[in-house]
């Protein structure tokens, strides 16, 4: 089984690749199209999504759970299918929480939920596929035995909590451009995701040491 080989350093390396994907997207939008998240959110979010998607799908397909029965290509396909499904779930969730539904917000909402899907749903879709038990397990932390679980769940929860916190400045009367939907929510989500990615290797490291002391 290859998953056992992954250590804290590997996890950190993989996460930095994801972060690099985001950074590339940001840099591309900034230098090539000279657009930033604040001035035109929708195109920037699109570029971020396009840059992040291959990195996330390829990386997590490599980490897929059932190596023997599921080929790399199949995992990639799962990720690609998972992207719109996750986006739909994220979009629904955000509308429940109060995101604007006007027509002019649709592009931004769509790309934002794609990005959120890449942060939350797609990695798990690549790794688990449709295995219900794994999904339940990752949501409940009932058995945090697996290292990949940490890599999936900590950054995903980070992104969601970050986005939730990022929504709070929106009603304030500061009249800053970044208070518009979905700019500050995106900032929150990215920040939360990055913090989660930093945090998950730490947890993995602690977890391994815990196991080691136990076995000894």
């Amino acid at each position, binding site marked *: 089984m290859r998953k056992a080989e992954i250590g804290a350093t590997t996890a950190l390396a993989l996460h930095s690749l994801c972060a690099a994907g985001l950074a590339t997207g940001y840099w591309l939008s900034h230098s090539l199209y000279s657009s930033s998240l604040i001035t035109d959110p929708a195109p920037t979010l699109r570029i971020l999504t396009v840059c992040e998607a291959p990195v996330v799908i390829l990386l997590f397909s490599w980490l897929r759970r059932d190596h023997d029965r599921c080929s790399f290509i199949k995992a990639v396909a799962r990720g690609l299918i998972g992207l719109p499904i996750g986006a739909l779930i994220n979009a*629904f*969730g955000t*509308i*429940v*929480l*109060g995101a*604007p*539904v*006007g*027509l*002019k917000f649709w592009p931004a909402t769509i790309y934002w939920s794609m990005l959120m899907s890449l942060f939350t749903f797609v990695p798990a879709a690549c790794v688990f596929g449709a295995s219900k038990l794994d*999904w*339940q397990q990752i*949501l*409940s932390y*009932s058995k945090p035995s697996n290292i990949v679980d940490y890599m999936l769940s900590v950054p995903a929860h980070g992104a969601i909590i970050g986005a*939730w916190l990022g*929504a709070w400045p929106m*009603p*304030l*009367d500061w*009249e800053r451009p970044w208070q518009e939907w979905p700019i500050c929510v995106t900032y929150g989500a990215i920040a939360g995701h990055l913090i989660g990615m930093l945090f998950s290797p730490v947890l993995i490291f602690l977890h391994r040491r815990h196991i080691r002391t136990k076995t000894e």
Partner: protein
Amino acid sequence: MRMRMRLKAAAAAVLCLHCLGVYLFTRGFLLTRTELSAFSLPSDLLQAQAPCCSELPSTTNQDQDLPGWTPPTVERVLILIVDALRFDFVAPSSLFQKKQKWMDRLPSLQHLASTHPSSSRIFKAIADPPTTSLQRLKALTTGGLPTFIDVGNSFAAPAIQEDNWIHQLVHTGRRVVMMGDDTWTQLFPHHFNHSYPYPSFNVKDLHTVDNGVAQHLVPWLHRQDWDVLIGHFLGVDHAGHIFGVDSQPMVQKLEQINAILQNVTDIMNSQKHLENTMLIVMGDHAQTLNGDHGGGTSEEVETCLFAWIPRSLPSSISSIFHPSTCGLGLNGKNICTSTMQQLDFAVSISALLGIPFPFGSIGRVNPELYALSPGSWDRQWLPASFYEDPSSDLKMWKNNYAHVLCINSWQVKRYIDSYSATSVMGFPSDDLHYITKLYNEAQSRWSDSKNRSCKPENGTIDEFSDFLLSFATLARSAWTEFDMKLMVVGLGIFIISIIFHLFVFERVQSLSNVYDNKTQKSSNHLQIYVAFLLVAVRAVSFLSNSYILAEGRVANFLLATTAIGSIRSSLVYGKIKKHDLVFLILIILIRFGIEKGMPKQAATNPFLNYDSGSDFDLKWLPSLFEGHDFVILLPEISPMIILFLLSFLSCKYITSTVHSRCIKWVVTVGTMLSYLFIATFWLSERSFAPKMVYVIGLSLFVLNFVLRYLGILEKGETVQRLRSLALVMVSAWSPTILILLGKQGPFVVLVCIIAGWSIISSKNKGLLDDCKMDPISVMQWSLLAICLFYQTGHWCTFDGLRYGAAFIGFDEFKVVRQAILLFVDTFGISHILPIFSLPFLVTIPNSSSSKGRDKTVIFLNLTQVYLLYGLITAITTTFTVLCVAIQRRHLMVWGLFAPKYVFDAIGLLLTDVLICVSALYYC
């Protein structure tokens, strides 16, 4: 049994504590003033032993015709009010540190002030907070200090009930013409001979009102059939609100005003009949550089008053003018300014026009303004012995002024006496003694000087002024200053009540843990922490005015968060149930309802910048179906269909839940009849139908209590019994609330029922016992109640009350009856229904595990639910109180924080009362 007593006792204790806290804090914070309904009459001076004008009736033969207390000193008054006129708009820029681009834009006034120094004057007029237009107009006309809550007998209509000089003018047969801001016609609906009101509603419209005034002003100046003309320009205020003071539109606006004023002064100079007309150009309040006003900062209160009379006046007027600040005007000549209190305006104008001073006016006739009138230099009060030296203008003027001041003081003293006698909260008695002493001293000196038939000395003027100014100071401290001590004590009592509440809750919690298996303890603790975290987030959000404005959306956001959290736990423990998804969809619906109310709120609240186009543009939706009949019929028919559905639902649940046969029939028939009447009312607008609904609702409510105490509802198993009690109670209330909510009612009640059902069925799956209290559910219940408040088109200001609801079923107005209806409409869906239906949280679930449960445990859980609900409300309200205390000097304190405090305080007390009633009824 001990448990049951405990809830009652705790609820009563908390209610008492909250009452005390609200009372103390309100006394410190919400300055109240009682409006007296008395009016001054021309004959008052003769009837009362008014000590001032003993000569007046004996010497003037035409005393029967004398309309006022003093002879008029000007013929006409032309008042041009420029809303939000800052002092530095008018005063020469050399008075200020730096010349800004909005200064010196009214050169026509500066020119008059510099070329006619003895017949014109620029005053810095100090207004009193709250500096909102309505309160200022009230102050300008009544001469009082309107507070946030003026206790009077007006309910919805803003018409001024107190005595004011407009009323006095009309009463004495003068002709008043008004043009401009339509607030005037709201305040004085039947007073003007001619009025040209223009809507003040649209802040973005800079020109309609001003152009309207300009259009009607000039023709009227050529006419002679008026005595007082009021023109109210709004453009400067609106330009400030939208663009700020430092902006090009503001400069253009000021230039437009200047052109109008130039035209007016030219006409006044040329027309013979306007020779004795006083022109007053004034602001009702000022504004900050951002265009805000409402608070008490110097930028907001320092407005301007300019007075000018075409006739020339004696040059000795310059010795009456106070040594003042002067600066060079545009033409290089000196312009001097004085300072006056806006409070003095009403009585000064009454003295100028020779009408009785308004009963509630507490100002002093301003000497400088009075001196600007030609009549004040004429011989007014005989005997002639007073004026042995007719050449001395100044002495004559002083004599006149002393007379006026004496009447002024007498009138203020009369007001003090009658206010102390009638109002709920009078003035401190020490201060009253001091004021009375001042008055008596001044009067005795005055009568001394009279008896010795010598001239009134300067000293009398000073003594009367002293009395009037001291009383104005006292009145300001009573009506415009907060009492910090009382506020802090009130807040302290709120905090004590929370600690007590927590203590009781903890006791009950530990008691209930005794009955439980130990295993669930930790899980339940986590739930409580999460619930309190949510409460804390909501409570802390009140510290910012933005979150208070967006309270409905914040509550909805938190509700959605709990719903998503509950879905997550559903996933963990199994699969998603349908009620979870239904709940999410309901939250979206509620959210649309809340957002639909936002533009309405924004229209009346200048602080809420809500762009309706950006957030909720479903305007394309109707265009899709344009031309189809059902689009027109849908809003008419859908409430009926939902109403039918509701009646079916309630019928079904009542028959299946209530066991006692006779109750079942009474309640079912009552509910059915109510729904029938509601449908009749909507179809035919007959007013008997709502009355019947109210009667049925009330009698069912009373019947419930009677039956409860007769023990008829006692049958059956505990859970069963509690459930039927709650159901009967809710069905007694819901038709009344439904009809008051109007056509949105059925939909809202349906949403409420389905949301309640979702909350109950999605109770924490981690708890084995379905009937155990789940803190998250209680929290969701409370958030749902807040969302429903906003969804039904309410918000926390007084214009957010749905006044129309008070008149459903009644045409004529009676304070108590209409207030009760309005109260039920405002708090029905957000307080009464949710609190009475709380027992469902512990009784509804699957009957499998609830069977054979101990009676004590159920009541323990019920007690917990009620205590927790009360605690949630108490904590959020305490934070509102804290926030109001912190923000008491905030710009929006009267526009936003104070109404929020009033609504929350009433909501809290109502919650406590309802919990007490529930404790009596259910336990």
